[in-house]
């Protein structure tokens, strides 16, 4: 018998999609039964109470959580989100219900062994509810009490060789696309650099020294399967500089209808026979392709590497050999001045262990500038907007490149610096007046 009636939530237990309500009830029941005699370290009925508080929100149309104040583990400035219920008497099981962010492995591959260990720990010391995963990428442990924070952290570190993720004005847990692990289009090893930078910058991740949050994301190619360009302060997007590799026989096989276009992604509808002209050549954004006499040609210098032709004919076209990444800076969510997409700051850079060039010529100069000049709660993108792209060029020493802009400025308001203008700004008014009377 459930602790609270949940008539509204119960209506979410039907329909084809997995029901989170059913799953929460399952956990509530498992805790109530406690078949494995676990020494629960937080209230056994926390899942019941979470269902209860959620039902109340469904009834009222309002959240019942209060801001969590500052809770955490000793020596770290992040990794925990404090949370208190605004009806603690009604729902004592979730009166204190803090979240812990656990740094996920790059690529989000797991062994069942690891997951089971995680489950055992969190069942004992927390709610037994998780998010797999949070929007940034962490494993989210959803709900525990303040005393358990250190205990969970201790067990993670000592028994699972596992650290917390980021929150607060820190580097946030980096994340990546599956990339080379299982994708033919990866232009660099996303997992390798994601892990390397996460480990290299542990101090920045755990101890707030930044004006605000800072995110890295790693996409192996311009398809951006981890959405780096839209939501990370530095986005690393794989690319190449040489020719797309063409297998002319396979092209013919696509044209002949032997291979399904786009790897079969459009199989749910009869789109008619594949038309390479209409579906590839004409959709190429630069018009740099030609298919004549059974031969496909790509005029490489004009190609945007937009991936379209490769996506449509994965067995015929492959990314080039001169691989690396482009780096985009400043993406963020809309609050406050409107969303920002990442802006290209490095058209091409090699991605090679130990990534010194990336660390020393890109990340660290940018951090130095941002830590020096950024206001409290000012994201990198906002600083770029406020001080101008030129300032970023100055602090990094990058050469201005037309690739950095979509189009040149439409206003002529160039703020010339005194040392750029012959003769400087100091002039003798009396000399001037000899030629120009008052």
């Amino acid at each position, binding site marked *: 018998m459930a602790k609270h009636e949940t008539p509204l*939530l119960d209506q979410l237990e039907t329909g084809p999609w997995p029901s989170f*309500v059913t799953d929460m009830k399952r956990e509530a029941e498992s805790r109530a039964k406690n078949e494995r005699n676990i020494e629960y370290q937080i209230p056994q009925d926390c899942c019941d109470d979470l269902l209860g508080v959620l039902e109340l929100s469904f009834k009222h149309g309002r959240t019942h959580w209060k801001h969590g104040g500052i809770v955490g583990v000793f020596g*770290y400035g992040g990794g925990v989100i404090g949370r208190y219920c605004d009806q603690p008497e009604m729902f004592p099981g979730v009166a204190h219900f803090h979240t812990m962010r656990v740094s996920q492995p790059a690529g989000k*591959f797991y062994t069942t062994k690891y997951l089971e260990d995680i489950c055992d720990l969190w069942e004992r010391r927390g709610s037994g509810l998780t998010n797999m995963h949070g929007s940034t990428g962490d494993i989210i442990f959803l709900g525990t009490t303040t005393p358990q924070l*250190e205990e969970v952290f201790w067990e993670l570190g000592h028994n699972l060789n596992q*650290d917390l993720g980021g929150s607060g004005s820190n580097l946030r847990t980096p994340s990546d696309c599956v990339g080379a692990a299982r994708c033919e289009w990866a232009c660099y090893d996303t997992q390798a650099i994601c892990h390397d930078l996460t480990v290299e910058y542990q101090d920045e991740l755990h101890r707030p020294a930044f004006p605000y949050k800072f995110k890295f994301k790693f996409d192996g190619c311009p398809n951006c399967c981890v959405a780096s360009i839209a939501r990370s302060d530095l986005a690393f997007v794989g690319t190449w500089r040489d020719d797309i590799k063409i297998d002319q026989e396979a092209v013919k096989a696509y044209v002949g209808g032997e291979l399904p276009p786009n790897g079969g992604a459009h199989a749910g509808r009869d789109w008619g026979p594949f038309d390479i002209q209409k579906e590839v050549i004409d959709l190429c954004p630069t018009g740099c392709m030609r298919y004549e006499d059974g031969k496909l040609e790509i005029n490489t210098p004009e190609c945007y590497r937009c991936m379209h032709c490769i996506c449509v004919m994965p067995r015929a076209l492959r990314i080039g050999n001169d691989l690396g990444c482009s780096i985009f800076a400043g993406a963020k969510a809309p609050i406050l001045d409107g969303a920002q997409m990442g802006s290209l700051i490095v058209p091409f850079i090699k991605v090679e262990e130990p990534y010194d060039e990336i660390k020393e010529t890109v990340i660290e100069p940018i951090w130095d500038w941002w830590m020096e000049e950024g206001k409290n709660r000012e994201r990198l993108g906002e600083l770029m907007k406020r001080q101008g792209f030129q300032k970023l060029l100055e602090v990094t020493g990058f050469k201005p490149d037309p690739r950095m802009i979509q189009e040149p400025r439409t206003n002529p308001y160039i703020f010339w610096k005194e040392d750029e203008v012959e003769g400087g700004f100091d002039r003798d008014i009396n000399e001037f007046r000899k030629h120009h009377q008052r």
Partner: protein
Amino acid sequence: MAFVSSGYNPDKPMANRITDIGPRKFDEFYPPVIAKNKGKWLYHEILEPGILVHVAESGDEVYTIRTGGCRLMSVSHIREICEIADKHCDGHLRFTTRNNIEFMVDSKEKVEPLKQDLLSRKQAGGCYKFPIGGSGAGITNIVHTQGWIHCHTPATDASGTVKATMDVLFDDFTNMRLPAKLKVSMACCLNMCGAVHCSDIAILGYHRKPPMLDHEYMNKMCEIPLAIAACPTYAIKPAKVTLEDGTEVKSVSVNEPRCMFCGNCYTMCPAMPLADDVGDGIVLMAGGKVSNRISAPKFSKVVVAFIPNEMPRWPTMTDAIQRMVEAYAADANKYERLGEWAERIGWERFFEKCELEFTHHLIDDFRDPAYFTWRQTTNFKF
């Protein structure tokens, strides 16, 4: 329940402490076929919705079955996932960037039993535990945020709106009939934790009333200067207020027409709550994308200014979403993302075809760049 120590000693927090070790290294977790063929994949094919094969230079193959996940997941559910992975996948699995679960096997024979096993598992109410799909030109899992499960500023619930939406879009999760991928995302307040600002369709929780002022407690619960500083539109000013009982207290006043209902003040100051049963609800956005395929990434645009919270299934919202999906499915060209379609036909046609009303709220009036969204050409359609 008795307190069980992990070994941590509160009196000596630094004793034997382990910090800064970071996450587990990815290669501990690779299935053998992945470890062996990493960086050497040749091509992939989607064999049926949710089932992919990747073929390596070595001739090795990896078959992936993608199943829908509720990212709010109990340990009991995770253990069931592990049970399946142990049975079919030598104890390996992965999660996608959109919270789906991927079970991988290294030969074709292993696919069918795994598939049957997954589809056979249902919850008590009949919901699939592991629906297969979310690939190719279809709709995959909705990435979302905390909602009423865990956050203090949501204007709607996340898990609930997502369940309601995925139920109505389920056929497109298990199918690949759309012109291109269609990504739906959800965020429960305008902090937009996620990439809803660049999604084909985005569900956003939004407040529409300025904070209430708990004058009596303002100066007790909050650092008033911090509350004032938190407001992005400078709507909050210090104020002296006389309570019913005649005492004068330090508090704040809010210039309501300036308030954009962002809730920053509430984050800093619990005496300024702004949640409201009728004020809060849903904004729908559409036409964003992230990939660079053919066209540059795009921001989502607001297409419905407000839909009330209708618990438990938000029918007005899911209807509007369905209308968009159907109009897009019927009218877009092959490979065309929703935003590309809207731009090609023109937003004036988008509203017509999706049967959405165009209201003044949808015209940008927020700061200078608003002006760039106005129509500055005679190129429009009657």
